[in-house]
């Protein structure tokens, strides 16, 4: 078993038009910048991107969006300093936005990875973000039914990997990585380094390799 991809292009070679992609990172921390820019350099179309933000500046996710590859984005916080590329695409009507509360977003992704077909949460109940959604009163309080959010691919950035796909993360670059890794039908991790099998302390593994299909070394 060897999940190490030889280079960046081969790590995401099978991402095609219409694919749904979970993209790790909170701002720049944990963003799989190299994988995103590889995709940005292709002639991709109609991707659905699921990420916390909608990219800033001109690199990484912003580059992918600027390439016109994405027709839809599901995220919690698209508007921030530097999100001009997304804002332009959105105002032109070139990209559809589904806004989702951040914790509901991460929980929907976890649900997909954990085989949970739906869950009830108070978050967003009786707000515009839950307009028209199925609700249920539980213990006297209004809840919204939320559904799992899986994707064809999960692209994440981690710190250390081995050839079985075990991953550790660095500080708060962990963020969405462990959760998205569970929910990608194919999860690809770009990592600072790849070490021999057994070099990662089993107590320190954050994402067990079972959730990861490919790793590629991209030193920062």
């Amino acid at each position: 078993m060897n999940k190490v991809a030889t280079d960046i292009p081969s790590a995401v070679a099978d991402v095609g038009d219409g694919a749904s992609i979970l993209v790790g990172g909170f701002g720049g921390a944990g963003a799989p910048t190299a994988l995103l820019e590889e995709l940005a350099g292709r002639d991709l179309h109609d991707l659905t991107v699921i990420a916390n933000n909608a990219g800033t500046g001109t690199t990484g996710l912003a580059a992918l969006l600027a390439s016109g590859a994405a027709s839809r984005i599901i995220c919690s916080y698209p508007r921030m300093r530097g999100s001009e590329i997304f804002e332009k695409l959105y105002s032109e009507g070139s990209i559809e936005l589904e806004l989702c509360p951040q914790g509901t977003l991460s929980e929907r992704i976890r649900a997909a990875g954990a085989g949970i077909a739906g869950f009830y949460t108070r978050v967003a109940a009786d707000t515009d973000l839950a307009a028209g959604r199925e609700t249920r009163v539980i213990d006297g309080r209004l809840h919204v039914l939320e559904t799992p959010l899986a994707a064809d691919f999960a692209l994440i950035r981690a710190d250390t990997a081995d050839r079985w796909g075990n991953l550790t993360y660095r500080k708060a670059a962990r963020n969405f990585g462990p959760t998205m890794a569970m929910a990608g039908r194919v999860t690809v991790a770009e990592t600072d380094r790849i070490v021999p099998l057994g070099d990662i302390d089993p107590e320190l593994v954050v994402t067990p390799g079972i959730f990861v299909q490919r790793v590629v070394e991209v030193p920062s």
Partner: protein
Amino acid sequence: MSAGWSSLEMAAAAAGDLVDGTYVNLGIGLPTLVTRALPSDREVVLHSENGILGAGPPPEAGDEDWDLIDAGKQPISLVPGGSYFSHADSFAMIRGGHLDVAILGAYQVSAAGDVANWHPGAGIPAVGGAMDLAVGARSVWVLMWHNDQDGRPKVLAECTLPVTGRGVVDRLYTDLGVFGFAGGSLVCRRLAPGVDRATVQDRTGTGIVFDDKEGQQ
């Protein structure tokens, strides 16, 4: 607008109400000032939604680590006893009622304790973790200016902007004082120095019940 608290004084009023051992999430914007005003005689553990407990002050210029940022994507540090965890775990903390206090910024707060802070009314909205914090934290405090840049009240009988959560705000800190919510009414608990009851009522879009013994002394 010379009377009342500065932004740092508002933050200090909130910070002073955080007891030893409190787990607190600070929203982006004004609430981040609370970090600068925390009394040194107690341990308050700061939670950052992006998977951090024990968020500490910003590092010296040049020492920034862009893998260690806060909810506003600004470089921070980690205090001894801090930890890192995933977003799913971070929001399990928020949604599961483990945070003692969330201090949010806001566009508007209503007399019933509704808060509106995710949708400016026009343009692209951005909710982030606001709705999760609004319903998940055991106690929700709002820290905001009492009036907007045009002098209009931000504390209203009903929010006119889309709400983040309904009936969730427990305390409100503004430049004019500290407020609570009881029986569907805004209750003034404390007036900022140099602010009188008539002024705060005049600058508020809903009736106020005054219970500000401390502030009047």
